[in-house]
């Protein structure tokens, strides 16, 4: 069975995020005050073949830890299954 996976990667706390800071500073120009703590990151969508959700999570976590995030500067969170839209959604007719 194929489980949909969402991996979010962001800079670790304490690592400067000039992109997030720049976005945050731009918001008042839109009249949007009170937005703080902006951090920019990346998200990855893919499917993992596994027997059950727990092993899908384990495999997806390896993908995140060993390739998608650089542990020196980044951390990741992995979501599997319900709530994650199927991979390829939007690209298939």
């Amino acid at each position: 069975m194929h489980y949909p996976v969402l991996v979010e990667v962001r800079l670790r706390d304490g690592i400067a995020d000039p992109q997030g800071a720049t976005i945050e500073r731009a918001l008042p120009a839109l009249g949007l005050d009170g937005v703080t703590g902006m951090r920019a990151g990346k998200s990855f969508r893919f499917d993992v073949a596994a027997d059950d959700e727990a092993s899908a999570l384990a495999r997806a976590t390896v993908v995140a830890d060993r390739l998608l995030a650089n542990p020196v500067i980044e951390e990741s969170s992995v979501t599997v299954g319900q709530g994650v839209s199927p991979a390829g959604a939007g690209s298939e007719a």
Partner: protein
Amino acid sequence: MAARVGVVMFPGTNCEHDAVLALRRLGASSDLVWHGDTTVAGFDALVLPGGFAHGDYLRPGALARFSPVMEAVGRFAADGGPVIGICNGFQVLTEAGLLPGALQKNRGLRFVCATVGVRVETSDSVLTAGVPVGTELSIPINHFEGNYTCDADTLARLRGDDRVVLRYVDNPNGSVDGIAGVCNAARNVVGLMPHPERASDPLLGSVDGTVLLRVLMASAEPALRAPATVA
């Protein structure tokens, strides 16, 4: 016998010919090594040059570490062979785990292309052996992700073990402790953001890069390295 220096070329590398030319003009025998090769036999030293290996997709250097040649580069380094990574090559070496730390986006998200002052901080590495500490060199940098970072423990270890090879005179990118180059514990793997090959001729505005390239060539010491495998 001239030092034989291999210059590793990944898809997207773009400074390989500059490096080969600079090394040859200094008297080295230098040739390209394709990233798909599984051996670096026949070389006494390796250079991972600048560019955008594998398009810098995901992160600079992140995918280059899976190129077949990197296993051979890792063995060469483990055997004590001199390996230097310039700019993108530095990023590849950190992603491959051959050097500590990471190169993140420059402070202020600023791409920097300028000739900068860098100071030699140790005379004990394959790139700076015999060069007096405090020597200032004028060498170009050209990068967006050259902001060296590492955790506090790693930084303390780098300083305590005299592994900071080069520091910027005037930090151009936000690098922690002004670090422009570091080496591994065995001191035979060095990564640096400045491009010594671009400071190798008076026409380029500086010849200071030749100071470092000559040390690399001397570090190669062909007699100590395994001879080329004859098929």
